């Protein structure tokens, strides 16, 4: 009996030591990670683009020359008063672009965060326990990944409404299977490592093991995938708004394109700037994503699929 308790105490010590080592490794890891990220000029450029869009969106009330909903003479070309012209209704395009960044970023972060949370939980837990439930879950990811997502999202938004929070949730909830798939693969390898086995032997219950030991150590590739998902969410929002399925109470880049597409002949300036704005944000996200992937897997020449 005493022997058993001693064993547990010893295992606990080993467990604590392992945790401490892990924490230190992680602290070094973060510093090394940042250093290696900053060593890549493309990744730094991406971070700058992303920063530019974010700062502009945050400072929208200060930077925007007009209220994006205020009306001026419609279809004005580029001028000193309206640096990017006005749209068919009479909104100042520059102000719409500046405010529109908020919607795009809300989609990028909101949808990707939701997808990350759901994907990690639904990938890690069944993957850790294995068995029939795991089989069913992984079949489900595979099935879901095969579905033409944009068509599903359009169907849902057309029938159930285009409120911004709802659409963010829809995009997040259609993206998580790829995170779950990556997380599950990570869990299967990490579970075999010594420190996890030590924690199991020490009698730590499964959920703390999963969320304190397994998930944090397997999160890196999921994070890399998340930058891709952010780009996908931005693109999907722009596409939906372009198709006329945007939230009418918000200003978004896709909506400017939707309003301007009928005026390509007479007022081409309307469609130029929102496209450039979308491209800036997407390029930033892709470059940062490539940078993160390359740091995580230096052997990789380009990064990802």
């Amino acid at each position: 009996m005493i022997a058993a308790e001693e064993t547990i105490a010893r295992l606990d010590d080993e467990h604590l030591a392992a945790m401490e080592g892990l924490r230190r490794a992680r602290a070094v890891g973060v510093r090394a990670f940042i250093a290696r990220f900053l060593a890549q000029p493309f990744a730094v450029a991406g971070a700058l683009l992303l920063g530019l869009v974010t700062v502009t969106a945050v400072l929208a009330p200060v930077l925007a020359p007009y209220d994006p909903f205020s009306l001026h003479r419609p279809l004005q070309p580029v001028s000193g008063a309206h640096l990017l012209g006005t749209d068919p209704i009479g909104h100042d395009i520059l102000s719409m672009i500046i405010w529109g960044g908020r919607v795009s970023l809300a989609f990028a972060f909101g949808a990707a965060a939701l997808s990350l949370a759901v994907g990690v939980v639904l990938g890690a837990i069944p993957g850790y326990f294995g068995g029939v439930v795991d089989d069913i879950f992984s079949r489900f990811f595979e099935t879901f990944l095969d579905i033409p997502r944009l068509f599903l999202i359009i169907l849902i938004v057309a029938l159930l409404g285009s409120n911004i929070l709802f659409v963010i949730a829809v995009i997040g909830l259609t993206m998580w299977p790829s995170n779950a798939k990556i997380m599950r693969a990570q869990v299967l390898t990490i579970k075999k490592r010594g420190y996890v086995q030590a924690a199991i032997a020490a009698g730590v219950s499964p959920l703390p093991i999963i969320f304190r030991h397994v998930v944090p150590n397997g999160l890196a590739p999921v994070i890399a995938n998340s930058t891709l998902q952010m780009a996908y969410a931005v693109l999907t929002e722009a596409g939906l708004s372009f198709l006329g399925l945007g939230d009418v109470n918000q200003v978004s880049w896709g909506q400017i394109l939707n309003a301007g597409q009928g005026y390509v002949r007479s007022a081409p300036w309307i469609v130029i700037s929102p496209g450039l704005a979308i491209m800036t944000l997407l390029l930033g996200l892709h470059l940062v994503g490539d940078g993160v992937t390359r740091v995580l897997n230096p052997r990789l020449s380009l990064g990802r699929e």
Partner: protein
Amino acid sequence: MRRYALRRVAQIVPVMLFIAIVNFLIIHLAPGDPAAALAGEGAPQEFIEALRVDYGLDKPLIEQLGVYLGTLLQGDLGYSFAYRRPVVEVIVERLPATLLLVLGSQIPAIVLGTLLGAFSARHYPSKIDSIVTGVSLSLYAMPIFWSGLLLILIFAVTLRWLPASGMFSFTAPPDGIGRVIDIAQHMVLPATALFLYSLPQYVRLTRASVIDIMREDFITTARAIGYSENVVFLKHALRNAMLPAVTVAGLSLSFVFAGALLTETVFGWPGLGRLMYEGVLKRDYPILMGVFLVTSALVLIVGILTDLIYATLDPRVSYE
């Protein structure tokens, strides 16, 4: 191999069942009367009532699901009131335009993308490689509906070289070579938009897989034997790197269809994607559900075919 093929084909059943159930759930989650949603906007009351009886919408949910699945199995995707025709007929009529656009853009994208990716990898690391990577990243970041609008602005509005929208002009001859030329002229811009959208995918993938393969032991061996760098590259690296490119071509069909949807909307190209857009405008829900179902089925079938081709090409693939 045969068993593997059969098993892959059998996997269609649960996926399609899942998609049908998703359709069913969305209709029932929609605010208001499911019969009205199934009918689409603008349908008369008698039609809505007839649907209620046909689909057993006054019966318990599980029974309704059974009826719905039964009608789908008979190939009945519902009736579109906006078109006054069965949904299946409208979809079948639109399918060729989409397939034409997809093939017309993807074949050049696969060929050129693979060559460009391999070329870039051959010169890795160098300035040329950086330029190819930079250009393909920029293309990758362009929303397809925007590049479509730019193409219209440049080639249709400013230069007046090509028609901006549609698939035919009224003045063109109704058949023969004149009609082929007419369709081809209308196809150039939308196919270019879809080509530019897919190209970076193939470039990036081929480039990465060639660079990875150039580091493999068998390449080092081939070099050590004294084969010239060109032989090593063409005979050993490129051939092995082609496989993943082939797979992605099939597996990314859902990505290509998403691009086609937006391209067809911009250019008024009368395919499935434009049909989906018209369905959104007219609130024609049977059309939206039908297009979703049919594109899902196409994506699945092509995915399975790609897997089977891959398995035949690469003997290392296990059938278990």
